[in-house]
């Protein structure tokens, strides 16, 4: 069976079909939540909430739109709201990053430094800019897809991404370059 069949079955209340969708999209949703929130526990909670909201609103899903974009839209908007509600600064959970990478400690050292740095820099961006960077670099979304997912215009997401790139470049320079 394909994804469209699972979606139709889940819309009719089939929990097994919904469980398949959860398995299929758990990594993209979790990764987006982690990239935006920067902390493992919070990312898991946000990812779980995303799937709960998706389940509740399955009847509203438009099958002409890719399911991935629909569920990423739920996750991104939920994370943006969550970031706006919480305190301004968030510390990076280093141990969580290591575990989430799922690597052997010796193999993970090089990737670890990059990860730590990326996440620290990401956490200094605004919620909207963070969402744009995440969708662009981790999901390879086009500007049109980003605009659809974030519920805004193409020019707005371009502006966000350009601003985020410049901010990240400046932050990298401040922290002694690459």
């Amino acid at each position, binding site marked *: 069976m394909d994804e469209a069949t699972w979606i139709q079955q889940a819309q009719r209340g089939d929990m097994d079909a919904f469980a398949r969708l959860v398995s299929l999209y*758990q*990594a993209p949703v979790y990764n987006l939540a982690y990239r935006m929130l920067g902390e493992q526990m919070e990312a898991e909670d946000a*990812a*779980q909430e995303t799937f*709960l909201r998706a389940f509740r609103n399955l009847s509203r899903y438009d099958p002409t739109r890719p399911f991935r974009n629909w569920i990423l839209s739920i996750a991104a908007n939920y994370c943006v709201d969550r970031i706006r509600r919480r305190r301004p600064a968030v510390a990076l959970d280093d141990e969580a990053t290591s575990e989430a990478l799922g690597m052997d400690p010796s193999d993970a050292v090089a*990737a670890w430094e990059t990860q730590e740095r*990326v996440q620290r820099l990401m956490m200094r961006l605004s919620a909207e800019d963070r969402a744009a960077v995440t969708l662009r*670099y981790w999901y390879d979304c086009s500007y049109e897809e980003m605009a659809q997912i974030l519920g805004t215009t193409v020019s707005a997401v371009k502006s966000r991404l350009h601003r985020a790139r410049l901010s990240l470049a400046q932050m990298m320079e401040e922290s002694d370059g690459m």
Partner: protein
Amino acid sequence: MECSETLERMMLALDGELPPEEWRMLESHLEACAPCRAQWERLQAVERVLQRAPLLAPPPGFAERVMARVDRRRAWRRNVLGGLALAMGTAVVILLGLLPGLWTVPGVANFLAFLVYGGDILLGRLSGATRLFLDSLQLLLRALLSLALPLAFCNLVLALALGILWLGIFRHCRPMRIPANGQ
């Protein structure tokens, strides 16, 4: 090409959308302009770091925890709906139990008849009806206190028992927050 024109082209280049001709113009500008070249190198460094960052997998057992949370939420909704249905049923039981007794209380029959057949004069005599209702309620309470209506009293006790039972089930089935680490 002026420095002010380069940033937009750098962004297009990073998106892979810069036409070859403009690429050449950008490159020749970068060769001659140190500040723009430094900016371009910083942007490329950001690009490299972001492109190397992997897609993180959720912790083990994530999907199971999601499904458990979905199940709990569904169970909670079912209990709320069931509780509402039970509460409405209880209200009906109370009404059915009280109605025969109410009818025997002096004044209530007249009041109910007035409510049903009052028609146009109902609004005009609202104050009188309110007074009559309060009088009827007082009579009803007296009748209940003197155990003159055992049937109504039994129904009331039954309704209360059902209500308490429902409350217990509802509180027991409240959704719980699942710890992210599954502990």
